[in-house]
């Protein structure tokens, strides 16, 4: 996980040092906030500011950021389309067969899109600045998650690429055998079941061995010391203040400099 992140990072920023718990809880609050925001003007400024934060503070190479942003915008536009093209409303802007664009549906569609974008931007910011191992360490240290669960998860994550590689090999072996046998053995439900059984049995065996190895390394669920001593630091406060300023700014500018003549998208 970690090297993956390092490959796409250009520099590290203070957000890397913010405790994962702070980031994740802020994310939850952001979700609630965005769902309750109904003024498209305010939401517009919020999404723009979040995009700026993502670009400036994620520390990710611009090339990768550009791809991510493009994807978000395309998906956002698509999700908005459903609302825009078929939504109900009183003021018709355009009509062609089934397609019926009204002013209300347009605003609502764009509003939904901006909600999605704001959360996507924040989510990517968290993902780009947080190592998965840190999440588990702070869950253990700050929130008292049992080491048993935390380390099992981390071990499981390590298994994912191994299982993926195994699946690729399984597909190759099937390709070799397929022309030699009746297709009922390979295709459909039966083929699916044998694939799953093979992969599962390999994984179960590996997990069992790993469990034995972990206990042989004297792992238990009791007290332990920590390699990553995650804690709350002034950076967490800085992060919270930054988010508050962003939200506050978007509220104020949204009410002062309205771009759209609608203040409630409902």
């Amino acid at each position, binding site marked *: 996980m970690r090297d993956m992140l390092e490959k796409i990072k250009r520099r590290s920023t203070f957000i890397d040092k913010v405790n994962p718990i702070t980031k994740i809880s802020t994310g939850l609050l952001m979700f609630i906030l965005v769902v309750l925001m109904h003024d498209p003007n305010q939401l517009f400024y919020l999404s723009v500011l979040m995009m700026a934060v993502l670009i400036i503070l994620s520390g990710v190479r611009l090339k990768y950021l550009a791809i991510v942003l493009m994807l978000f915008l395309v998906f956002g536009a698509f999700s908005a389309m459903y609302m825009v093209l078929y939504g109900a409303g009183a003021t018709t802007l355009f009509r062609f067969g089934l397609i019926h664009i009204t002013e209300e549906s347009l605003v609502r569609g764009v509003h939904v899109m901006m909600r999605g974008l704001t959360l996507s931007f924040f989510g990517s910011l968290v993902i780009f600045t947080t190592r998965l191992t840190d999440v588990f360490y702070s869950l253990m240290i700050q929130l008292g998650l049992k080491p048993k669960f935390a380390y099992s998860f981390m071990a499981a994550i390590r298994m994912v690429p191994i299982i993926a590689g195994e699946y690729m090999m399984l597909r190759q072996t099937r390709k070799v055998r397929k022309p030699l046998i009746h297709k009922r*053995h390979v295709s459909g439900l039966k083929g699916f079941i044998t694939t799953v059984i093979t992969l599962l049995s390999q994984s179960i065996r590996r997990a069992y061995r790993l469990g034995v190895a972990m206990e042989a390394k004297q792992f238990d669920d009791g007290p332990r010391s920590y390699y990553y001593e995650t804690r709350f630091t002034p950076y967490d406060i800085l992060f919270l203040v930054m988010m508050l300023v962003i939200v506050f700014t978007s509220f104020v500018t949204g009410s002062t400099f309205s771009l759209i003549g609608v203040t409630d998208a409902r």
Partner: protein
Amino acid sequence: MVIEIENLRLRFPEAEERRFDRLNISIRQGEKVLLLGPSGSGKSTLLNLLGGNIPRSMDIPFKADVLTVDPKAAYVFQDPDSQFTMPTVGEELAFILENRRIPRPEMGGMMEDALRAVGLRVEFTMAINDLSGGMKQRLAIASALLQGADTLLLDEPTSMLDEAAVTDLWGTLQDVWHDKTVVIVEHRVNEIWNKVDRVILMDAAGQLIIDEAPEAVMRDHIELLNDYGVWHPHSWDYAPVFETVGPRDEAVIEVRDMKLARGGRTLLNIDALNVKKGEWLTIEGENGTGKTTLMLAILKLIKSEGHIHVNGRRVKKTKDIAGTVYPVFQNPELQFMTNKVFDEVFINLEMHYPRDEAERRCAALLERIGLRHVSHLHPLEISTGQKRRLSVVTAAGGVPEVIIFDEPTFGLDQKLSFELLKMFNELVEEGVTVIMITHDSEIKKRYPSRRLIIEEGQLKEIRGAGHA
């Protein structure tokens, strides 16, 4: 005595007979012991008992009059991928220290010392998945050192390594093991035979047959070792010798101007490769040079530039040569797709014969490869050697014209390896072409009619090495 077991009786819950019946074993502080035995003789089970994995993690009922073991013993297991918990080298080493509640400020230095002791020069942030097999096993030894254990239990630590890595690994172990008690279960014994204090041989019933110094075992008990089919330093003197069957003149596989790339980097260029009918070919080369990739490319399982002709016909898809050129992968488990050993072969034959005839031929084929008695079992239940033999006949409809084996003798005992070699020879005599990817220098020296090696991105022929 660090380890003292008297009158041990152990039975696996589903088994009819006891795995160990009145077993006695004692090992002194600092002693190095090599534990031998045929497949399924309970070596790993015993090792799990010596370090307390039974009953700590494995629920297997047993009784013993005296049971002094070392529950803090450190293990190095056979499969590098199932002994690490964390994604990076540093985190994995720290995992051990965390378990020991070593304060954070002391960790870094201890971890560096451990890596230095095993000669592993990598950053703490290196991903374990990117390490080679040999490096992973050295990391496992570093972990064992950090555990601060007095006893080291090694369960076939080299079975997934190539020869150079094996030598390195034993060298590393010798550097760190002097004050420790070490019990080794291992197939590839040449490198360590004279470095241990005692050699113990267990039979299939879990009894100790031999328990003597290595020199004495070599002097008095070679016959016994051969009978039980375990490797010993002179194993190859007893290896099967075949009359050389020269390859026939017809070409089976022709490769022209092949270019293999991995991750945007050219891995291998082959201007021309001709494989003849009835050849026994080895493909050699260090880890990561592209041996397995070449196999996949010939089978058209991965993309490559160039032309491949089999029996004069251009190969465009895997389907074109299915059943003619057949691979046996390193991991035979992935090649099976039914719930019974019998069905594994039967589904091929049912395409060619009426049901009765197919069943008869299937039984005959299983008989021939010595799997008749396990034909009712699930393919994943049988032993490694059996799996490998089974995966060979999953090609059957008859027998394919070319079989490519990826490391066929990895992790097999002497008996199974020799049996497999005999089977290869039979195939060659029948005019089948056998291509083996192998690291085993004895096999390379003795059996192939032609040796190819991948060096510096080129496929070269080794000439003049001759036969033994």
